[in-house]
């Protein structure tokens, strides 16, 4: 789905419009307005972050002063100083992710598409990214599409959540709406998004059984014999 939104793949059926454009028909227009952080950073490994940012800013025809100001601030924020001129191949997964994030943010995209953006990030960078996401959502006409398996992150920063299970959208709405739909937390306590997710996808029982099996597998031998 994310690849289709970004004009990287074609839908097998149906269609969609992004910021008024069909990505299959007008990929250049869509890509000009999107900043995309993929789940796996497929960057040019032999380039340095500086080389890559130069390339991206040039392809996006950015004004030099604007590009320098933004990239400078972002690189400082994400502590890229000591990696700025090192080949990307030599960077850790988290640093590669930071490079990917800076490359996606530098042109101040109208739509920011983030696929598991917290992968490998340290606590400071995660926090900065969350703040950037919040700032992005406050800009008029701007939006963030955020894909994650970490429910706590989605719960904290998303105002509209879609739950996709086995390739199908099973629920969509604000956290409150999803709670109501799943009837989770009906006992008075506020259900977390994780509980909502498990209830909506009917995975609670399966998890209970899995945990039970794991307990038995890892139990000390005596306990197993005695049990």
């Amino acid at each position, binding site marked *: 789905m994310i690849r289709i939104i970004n004009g990287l793949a074609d839908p097998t059926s149906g269609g969609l419009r992004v910021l008024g454009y069909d990505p299959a028909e007008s990929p250049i227009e869509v890509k000009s307005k999107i900043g995309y952080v993929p789940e796996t950073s497929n960057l040019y490994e*032999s380039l340095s972050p500086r080389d890559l940012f130069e390339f991206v800013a040039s*392809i*996006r025809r950015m004004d030099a002063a604007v590009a320098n100001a933004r990239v400078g601030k972002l690189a400082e924020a994400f502590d890229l100083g000591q990696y700025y001129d090192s080949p990307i191949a*030599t960077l850790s997964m988290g640093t590669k992710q930071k490079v990917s994030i800076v490359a996606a943010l530098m042109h101040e995209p109208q739509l920011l598409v983030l696929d598991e953006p917290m992968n490998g990030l340290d606590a400071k960078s995660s926090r900065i990214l969350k703040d950037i996401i919040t700032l992005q959502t406050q800009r008029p006409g701007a939006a963030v599409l955020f894909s994650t398996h970490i429910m706590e992150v989605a719960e904290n920063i998303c105002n509209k959540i879609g739950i996709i299970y086995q390739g199908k959208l099973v629920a969509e709405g604000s956290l409150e709406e999803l709670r109501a739909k799943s009837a989770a937390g009906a006992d008075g306590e506020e259900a977390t998004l994780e509980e909502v997710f498990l209830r909506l996808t009917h995975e609670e029982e399966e998890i209970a059984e899995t945990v039970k099996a794991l307990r038995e597998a890892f139990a000390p031998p005596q306990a197993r014999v005695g049990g």
Partner: protein
Amino acid sequence: MKLGEAWKLSKTSYVEVAYRSNVMTRGTARGAFAGGDPAKRVRSIVRGTLISKISFTVLVSLASAYVLLQYERSRTPAGLAGAVTFSLAIAVAYIVLYSLQVLPSFSGGESFELLTTLPLSKRDLSLVTFFSFARTFDFMLVASIATQVVVVALLTGSALATVLMFLAAAVNSAFAVWIALTFSTLFYRNITKGGRGKGAALARLAFLISWGFAALSIAFSFNFIATALPAIDGALTGTLSRPLAAEALALLHPISEGIAVSGAAYPGYATSTSSLAIVYGVSYAAFVAYLLLAVVVARRTLSTILAVAQGKLSGVARTLTTEFKLRIRSPVPAYLVKDARIASKSPQMAFVFALPVFETVFIGLYLSGFGVLGSGTIVYATGTGCAFTLFGATALLNTEGTGLEFTMALPVVSKTIVDAKSLISTLSYTPVPVAISAALLLGKHGTSLLLAVPFLEIAAVSAASSAELAFFVGNYKSGGILQTSSAVQTRGLSLLSAGDILRLVESLAVAALLVGGPLVTYAIVAELLKNYAMAVVLMGGVSVSEWVGVQLFLRKR
């Protein structure tokens, strides 16, 4: 850990080394274009590595045997010496060429990182690393040595000659493996060094040019060795005119081994005259020296492998940057700079940089053999320069690698990619007119109008490069060659399917027509009408028309 266990375990890290090397040097472009099924991609690369190893093994064995069998024609000591020399040179060339594909990631040690987390002793780890390295060459070396030894035994029937052939092949293999590992280590350092300074960039370029030049020279070693054969013959028949030339030849590897094997097969001939005895004596002494050197080289190879196992080569130096300034360019120059930067760190791309050097040397040597330079010679030299360039154009597609997925998410049109790569390809042609002009200005020539021929060809080379690349870089609007509407579709040539090969042949045929058009026009008008001015004008017209035509085609697609 038992040796068998270590050998078994080493298969995993060997496969990882081969996979990473493939990704490092050629990228996994095909997988990225296909939408990326990682499992399929890995399987394909691993299978490709095995096929490549088998192919090279067959090739090195057949070539070695074929060259040695040439001795049958003459049945002379010089014939045997030449055949052994040639056979050894071919073996080392193919082994090094093969290793350029498989070994580049070895020195980084990443393929062994998982092993370090397992409860393995330092000795076990070193053993597994050594076996992983050995798997790169295993049956290729065995087949190459065995072929040479068996063929020499059958041809000469001499036990001593057979033993010497075995030793010579072993020495040769030790050198080949050492060269391969040294290239791998240098490549790894080149990749991980980084740095923005001009010194670092120049050092990388110098390294790449020398690497590419070496690779090209190895590929053309048949020609070089072929030219050395008469000298070997002269050394062993006493017909070399220069004093001490025969002794000097006998000192060189692998000529010394060739002469020594021949001396063992023809002991009477080796001592028939005092001058021949000296030549053979020198070759035996040099052979012993090379044996000792091979031991030193083997120990060095081993210590490098142990250093890899202990992670001693994988250190990466970092320098803190406080200045984050970027240099913004237009899209085509930006794409060109990006490609040039990637190519400057890839051994597979090295020959793109070495091409200008090689073209200049080749054309310079070719033209120096003529007394008066006429139309035919200049057209042939220009055409040869074009041919070199055309083989480099599609190789530039491999600069994309896995990064293509990243570029596909950017607003870049396919024409930008074609234009940038075509420009690099055309730039690699520019030494051709320079070399031809120099030859024309320094030597005698028919008409000064000949100077224009290689320059007018530049537009045709650009058109041919663009057309060639257009076969692989599709159109995002109409689906293009790859039948998908994804924004940018390019396909690397790292994993050639039948379709890829067909497309490559088609693209080369079209490119050859485009570069050939202006040259044929010139040749026909110049030779038939003897009107050189008209020939030049028409050639220029065809060349520029081709360029305009290809540009219009690319715009319309």
